[in-house]
Every structure is written in structure tokens, then in C-alpha cells.
């Protein structure tokens, strides 16, 4: 059974953390993963940095650029993760744009993920339709879950369609926006969370984009199965360093 499914069965209000691999320092991937697992985080999205991350806000753009300057590459990340499953047991998701994956070779990429023990992928610019037509069999073959995004503008019919093709979880973008930090969620967002909850989808939903603190985490998980923190976490480790990670996680829940 995929670790993601397992985790959703065991836990409510999952806390998941996104970070850009290779940031702040090239070799921080492993220490960050350990610190997150030790602090009780339920799942991690490891960001494969990209030169042109067009769905991301300034924080993740900057951390990606920094990671690339530090020398991060797809090869390098796989090297860093080679023996990760010796120490890390929580679900690991790779999140990256489609072009670097294409250049690596999609099949080869899937093989690598399988051999390392990656549980799933989030590829924001690989739309569900193209995935469906071209890549699903391959991903299935390597037992890789592919997670899709939905937004407040996604029509109900399309949400059902995405649900039908989803495995793992649905990444529920909190508002129509790129990634970034928000301090509170408003009524429209709550309405949206409720609306999706009422759809009773097959796939659990995890809220992402704009979650930054205990308050937004609580609001996001009131009607969903979990939340992902990205930009706020990245800003935190940039300021306080990797060693302070437990403090950040404690501040959330």
C-alpha cells in the first residue's frame, strides 16, 4: 500500500511541508527531511527547482533560483535521496515542473522514483488531460501517484473528472493565486473549502498555497484532510536556519 494512502488512513488533518531541494544550502535536503520527520510532520513535498516556476510566488521563485545556483540538478537530488528510505518513513512527494522531468526522461524519472521510494509526484504544469492521455499507464506501472490541483474556479464537473483520475490526494489551491504567504483566510475561502467537502470526493483533499501559521492551518484543515506549508516554511529556514525547524512545526500545531 502506498505510504500516502496509509498516512491518510491513520491521520486526520495532515501537516505537510514543501521545501525547495538545494536551498538554503545544496546539502540541506537530508537534514531538512530528518528534522521534519522528527518534528512530527506527516508528509513532505520535495521541490525540484526550476528556472521558470510560473505557478510560484516570490519566495519559492527565490529559493528555486538559489538552489539552482547552489548546483542542484535532478541527478543531484536523486543522488541525495538514494538511500533516504533508510531513515525517512513518512510519504515523500516530488514536486516539480514538467520540463526538467521531460529532459531527464520520463520513464527514467519514474524508475528512479520507484527505486528510491518516492510515493508520488506533483507536476503543476502537466494538466490532467495530457496526463490521462499520455502518462498514466507509465506512472501506474511504477506505482507513482500523481496529484492534481483544483482551485476555487475549477468547475464541479471537472473536479469530479479530476477526482476520478486521482490517487493519493487532491491538491486544493486555497485561492486563485500563485504560492505565497497569507495570514488569514476569508469567507470566500471557507465557503470554497466547505463546498468541496460537501462534494464528498473519493480522494482526500489537502489544502495548499497561503498557509503560514496555526490559524491558517486550522482553517484549512477544518474541512479537509490536511494542509501543505511551503513559502512560510522556506522563509523561516532562511531566517532561522535548518536547526530551528522544530520550533516552526511546534508553532503550527
Amino acid at each position, binding site marked *: 500500500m502506498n505510504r500516502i494512502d496509509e498516512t491518510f488512513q491513520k491521520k486526520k488533518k495532515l501537516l505537510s511541508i514543501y521545501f525547495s531541494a538545494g536551498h538554503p544550502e545544496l546539502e540541506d535536503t537530508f537534514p531538512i527531511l530528518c528534522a521534519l520527520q522528527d518534528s512530527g510532520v506527516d508528509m513532505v513535498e520535495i521541490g525540484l527547482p*526550476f*528556472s*521558470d*516556476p*510560473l*505557478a*510560484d*510566488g*516570490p519566495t519559492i*521563485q*527565490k529559493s528555486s*533560483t538559489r538552489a*539552482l545556483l547552489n548546483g542542484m*540538478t*535532478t*541527478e543531484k537530488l536523486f543522488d541525495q535521496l538514494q538511500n533516504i528510505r533508510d531513515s525517512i518513513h513518512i510519504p515523500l512527494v516530488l514536486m516539480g*515542473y*514538467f*520540463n*526538467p*522531468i*521531460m*529532459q*531527464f526522461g520520463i520513464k527514467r524519472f519514474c524508475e528512479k522514483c520507484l527505486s528510491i521510494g518516492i510515493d508520488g509526484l506533483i507536476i*503543476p*504544469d*502537466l*494538466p*490532467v488531460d*495530457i496526463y490521462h492521455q499520455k502518462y498514466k499507464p507509465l506512472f501506474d506501472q511504477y506505482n507513482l501517484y500523481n496529484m*492534481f*490541483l*483544483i*482551485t476555487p*474556479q*475549477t*468547475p464541479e464537473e*471537472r473536479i469530479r473528472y479530476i477526482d476520478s483520475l486521482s490517487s493519493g490526494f487532491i491538491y486544493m*489551491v486555497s485561492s*486563485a*493565486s*500563485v504560492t505565497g504567504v497569507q495570514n488569514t483566510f476569508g469567507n470566500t475561502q471557507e465557503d470554497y473549502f466547505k463546498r468541496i467537502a460537501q462534494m464528498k470526493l473519493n480522494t482526500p483533499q489537502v489544502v495548499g498555497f497561503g498557509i503560514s501559521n496555526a490559524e491558517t492551518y486550522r482553517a484549512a484543515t477544518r474541512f479537509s484532510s490536511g494542509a501543505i506549508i511551503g513559502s512560510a516554511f522556506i522563509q523561516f529556514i532562511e531566517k532561522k536556519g535548518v536547526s530551528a525547524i522544530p520550533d516552526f512545526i511546534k508553532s503550527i500545531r
Partner: protein
Amino acid sequence: MKYQVDEKGFYGDFGGAYIPEMLYPNVEELRQNYIQISESESFQKEFKSLLSDYVGRPTPLYFAERLSKKYNTKIYLKREDLCHTGAHKVNNTIGQILMAQRLGKNRIIAETGAGQHGVATATVCALMGIECIIYMGTLDIQRQAPNVARMKMLGAKVRAAESGSKTLKDATNEAIRDWINNPVDTHYIIGSVVGPHPYPDMVARFQSVISAETQAQLLKKENRDYPDHIIACVGGGSNAAGLYYHFLENPRVNIIAVEAAGKGIDSGKSAATSALGKEGIIHGSKTLLMQTPDGQITEPYSISAGLDYPGVGPMHAHLFRSQRAEFISIPDKEAMDWGLTLSQMEGIIPAIETAHAFAVLDVRKFSREEVIVFNCSGRGDKDLETYIDHFKL
């Protein structure tokens, strides 16, 4: 229709809409409506009337006598440099602003590199009284001050793209981010035949007025409605797409696409995508693009800001792959020299982008009876600083 887009938005292997889900409603709305709207009678009437009364179309097909004599062939220039705002770009922005109005949008965003598309967008927004935000790399804002001033004169807000290399590619990223953040009221006017389907096809259709006019004009001047060669520079590829459009399926027409070699194909400072690029995804479409082995998009270089794009539109990737078009790349120096040559032989100071196309005359031989149409995509006023510096005028 072998070289046109298919129903799924692909040109052969290239194209599609590789977009984040956040853009889905916008792009889908456009995809579902763009053909019906743009082919509607009311749209066509307004589009044609603005192209004629506002843009100044038809642009002339000018027989360049001195140049023809020198190269012993028949050289025609399609004079897009005479369009309002100084380049072909406005054909597209006129079409898109009418599209945006019909889709009920009241806010326009666009990216720009050299500033020509930004000016063309700001222009149509002023014309329609619609809010306009232009994204432009910090570096380009510094390099293209006059076009920044023009956009501001026209009432547009110019927002600096501070990320990445601070040029066109990053401005495009910023514009896409804005669109993601404003999915309901905003239309994104992309400036070339790039981006997710249906943009490449929509922009090519709006620009196709160039080849439609060329056909009619050639019939008058040469008694046949096609030339032997059509030559255009390719940044994203919109002026080229416009010139090629109605000739794509005519095998008697030889197509030449001219890219910027920058300081030379092998110099590491080039924008010759066909020579240096590989298949990949940029700005929502699968095409040829310049990238590292790791799939990071590399910063292109050309002395002309309008050719300084790391990809080409999917139509052009297909024309290259299928060998329908011949791709030639021209270095900075040759392009600059042709800027001067065209100025002094025909009294037309071309945009540096445009000048690249003419350099083909030194690279290919043409015979006396052959009819060549160059797309004179824009005027060189925006490039005066560069010309002054380069030639120490």
C-alpha cells in the same frame, strides 16, 4: 491542413496547453470561444475596420528597386513597419482586445521584451478605455526607456519583473502569475505565437492578414498570388506566422525563417533556438527551446530584444522538424550591417529584428526571375540607441 494546428492544439508533436490547473478556466474559456468569436460577423467587421482605419492596413507590398538590382532578383517588402505603433504586433493586440471585450474582461495584462508588444497592447487598451498592466523585466525597462515612456503615455502601468534574468522570459512568467491571481476579470494578451493552445493559433490567425494581403498584392503586381520565397525573422514567431499563414500548404512557396545567432551559434550567447534548442515545455506549450541538459531554461542572447526569446512557437518547431521551412541564423554584426544597408539603399530604417531577415540575401543565392517577399516586421526607431552605439553615429 498539414501545417496548421489540429483540434487538440498541436502542430505535429508541438503545442498543447501545459498549464497549471489555476489557468484552466481562462484558457479553456478562450479555447472554446476563440474561433466562434473571431469568425463572427460583428467581430470581423470591427476587426477589419480597426485594421484599416486605425492600424493603417493594408500595409504596402513595396518593390525594393535598388536592392533588387543589386541582388539581381525581385525583392518585395511587406511593410509592417508602417503599422500604427511601428510593427506587426498591433495586428494581434487589436484582435485580442476585441476578443477580451467579447469575453467580458475588463483588465488586460501583457508581457513585453523590447516593448513593442507592450506599446501595442497599451495602445489598444487606451483605444478601448480598458485597464492595462504590462510586465517587463527590470533589465529591459532600463534598456528600452523610450518604449516604457510610450506605455506610460498611453496610460498603462508598467510592472518590473525582478525575478530570474529580469528579461522577457521572466516578464512572461510574471504575467502568467498575474493571470493565475486574477482568473475572472483579466485577459492575458500574449505577444507572439507562443503560450498554451489556443494562443499560438489565435495569434497566427490575427497575424495572417499579412499573408492574405500579400496574396492579393502579388496578384496585382506579379500576376500570381504567391511568391517563390517568403522570409521573416523569428523571435516567438508571430510576424513569420503571419507571413507564412496562407502559403503553408503551397509547396511552390519556399519558407525561410531567420533566427538570431547573437554572438555566434557556439558562443554561448545566441538565440538560435532551432540550432540550439531541444523539445521541451515553455510557457505552457511543447516546443523547441534552449535549455540546459537538466531542463533549466537558458537565457538567450541577441542584440535585438525582440528575438531574445529562448523558444519558438510550436508552429515553427513543427515547420523546422518537418523541414517545411529552412532555418537560418544570423549573427548580431551581420544584422546590424543590414540595418544600415536597408537604411541607405531604401530609406527604411528597420527594427534590428527585421534586419536579421534581410541578411539572408548574403547567405542564399536567388535567381533573377524569383519573387521574394520579406516581412519588414517593424521600424527601427526603438533601436536607434543601439544603432548609434554600434556604428558610433
